[in-house]
């Protein structure tokens, strides 16, 4: 049993990570195969700063109307993604740095983050099902990715919280098998958006900077 758990934690995990890495590289090559539109105009502003600002846009909710109108959604967004970071980091901490999980504060932080992310996942699922405009644009992958992430948070929480004497290695098995599936599925799902984000944001920021959009200064005259 423990030997199998070891295989899942180490070998299988490494194999799916390698698969994911290769799939990511192929995805990037595929995207870069589309030729970039060439800019032939003289610049009105400096793109560098705006590109950085564009890349950081996700951390600047005040710049977007949706987040301003519904700050709760932004809080949910943050919790959900912190949950993702926590769950993924556990796939490393549990097999390679288990001593870290003995620190009470660290453990509690992970548990609270994962618990909050799980609740947010359920709320997001409810919203996706209940709001007609969201339902209209939702694909099977949108639902599946959300359900899978939410279940992954629950599994991660289980893996570090459930008394191992009562349930043996069951929660760990569940968590690492889910992690393996998760890493395998990500390249085929919308969860891969974080891979594309820098490209999309880079090009938007570059255009904005080139055109002096949102600079608040009179171009060339001040």
């Amino acid at each position, binding site marked *: 049993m423990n030997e199998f758990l070891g295989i899942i934690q180490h070998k299988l995990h490494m194999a799916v990570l390698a698969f994911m890495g290769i799939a990511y590289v192929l995805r990037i090559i595929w995207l870069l195969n589309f030729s970039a539109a060439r800019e032939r105009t003289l610049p*009105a502003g400096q793109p560098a700063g705006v590109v950085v600002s*564009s890349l950081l846009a996700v951390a600047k909710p005040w710049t977007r109307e949706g987040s301003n109108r519904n700050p709760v959604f932004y809080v949910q967004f943050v919790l959900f993604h912190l949950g993702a970071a926590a769950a993924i980091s556990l796939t490393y901490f549990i097999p390679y740095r288990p001593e870290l999980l003995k620190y009470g504060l660290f453990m509690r932080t992970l548990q609270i983050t994962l618990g909050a992310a799980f609740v947010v996942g359920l709320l997001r699922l409810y919203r996706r099902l209940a709001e007609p405009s969201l339902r209209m644009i939702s694909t099977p992958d949108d639902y599946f990715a959300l359900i899978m992430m939410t279940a992954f948070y629950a599994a991660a929480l289980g893996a570090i919280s459930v008394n191992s004497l009562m349930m043996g290695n069951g929660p760990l098995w569940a968590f690492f098998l889910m992690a393996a599936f998760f890493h395998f599925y990500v390249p085929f799902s919308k969860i891969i958006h974080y891979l594309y984000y820098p490209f999309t944001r880079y090009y938007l920021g570059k255009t904005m900077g080139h055109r002096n959009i949102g600079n608040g200064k009179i171009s060339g005259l001040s």
Partner: protein
Amino acid sequence: MNANTHLSGNRLGDPALATAGRIPALLRARINRQTACSMVTCVHCGECAQSCHYALARPHDPFMSPAYKADQIRKIFNRHLDWLGRVFPRWVGAGGKTEETDLSRLKDIVFGTCSGCRRCTFNCPMGVDNAALIRLARGILMEVGVVPQGMSNVCRNQWEMGNQMRVTEEDFIDSLSWVRDEVQYELGVNDVEIGVDKEDCDFIYAVNPREVKYDPRSLINAAKFFYLAGESWTLPRHGWDQTNFGLFSGDDRLGAFMAGNLYQAAARLRAKRIVVSECGHGYRSVRWEGYNWAKHNQTIPTESVIETIIRYLREGMIKVDRSRYRASVTFHDSCNVARYSGLVEEPRWILKQICSDFREMHPNGMNNFCCTGGSGLLVMPEYRDIRLEVAKIKAEQLKTTGADVVCTMCHNCRDGLGDLISHYQLDMKVVQIMDLVAGALILPEKQGS
């Protein structure tokens, strides 16, 4: 079952199917990395619906969400250009067969429920440019001939006549001499010259055909300022129309043709700069998109006449009296000028020189709401009802300012705002910046006093 029934049962030979079948190839030929990024990055979070005036005005209508509109072309991308969508089309929302796409419905979505304002783009956490995707879909429909009649007519005018209002060369020259006489009369001078095809001028001036055909006031104002500033300027005989329905229709070839006419005229006449009259989409087309469409590297400065007027005011080449204009004024930022071209402070700088009661509307600048007449909607009467319905967002915004006058720097916004002001019975007048500058202008004999 006879042969004919069999054929119709399979819908073979149906021209609509043949047309829809061309879409993947057209998409493949048009897509670039920037639009591909927008295709793949959307996570269907729905946040963009919070920023679109269509979605805000019709909150219970799920078809108004920007992501839904962009998804109509994204589906085709997923099915034909993304290997995942090719293998599992339903799973990623790639929909049914493209050959069965209802093109008429697609036309109504991309032409009738989006003003291309790009508000959703700047409010998307991922940076997805829905407006660009919708324009891409328009361009493909244009190619297969599924286009609103009004849009098609104006595009044809530009291809055939080089201007959108079918102004002939004789009419153009006639109008210019009338404008010259009017300027001379108003200034009390007799040496005003409005040159056509003059070589080696400081700038070449491009106008909106309505300034020539229906409403010469802004051309008269411009000619007056240029005269007082002692400018050497000219209009080109060909290429004087700065408007560009290639932008609205998504037809980059038309875009290249129209903008290229002007760039070629500037090169032929050895102009040192290009100045574009007050027009949102015209400015955007000439200053930014046109160079890329025409594959023409920009070599000379290209500016809005608003930037020219700022220079005149700063350098004292023309003078204005701020106390003359007593009405309260608010400013409407054209989407093409603010969100696409970055001119936000420029019009405000001028307004602060000429208005004693200037009030910002909220939101403004890059966050302003569209006049609701953008992207050619004013020439597509079949979408007027929904346009005016969703204009309630803009009407509310205008009303809250309590201003007597709304000023803009775009002919199209002027018409769009005028239409909604009369529809919502607001007590407000629409003007353009040049009108206000002309009203505050101190004429030469008074400049010394």
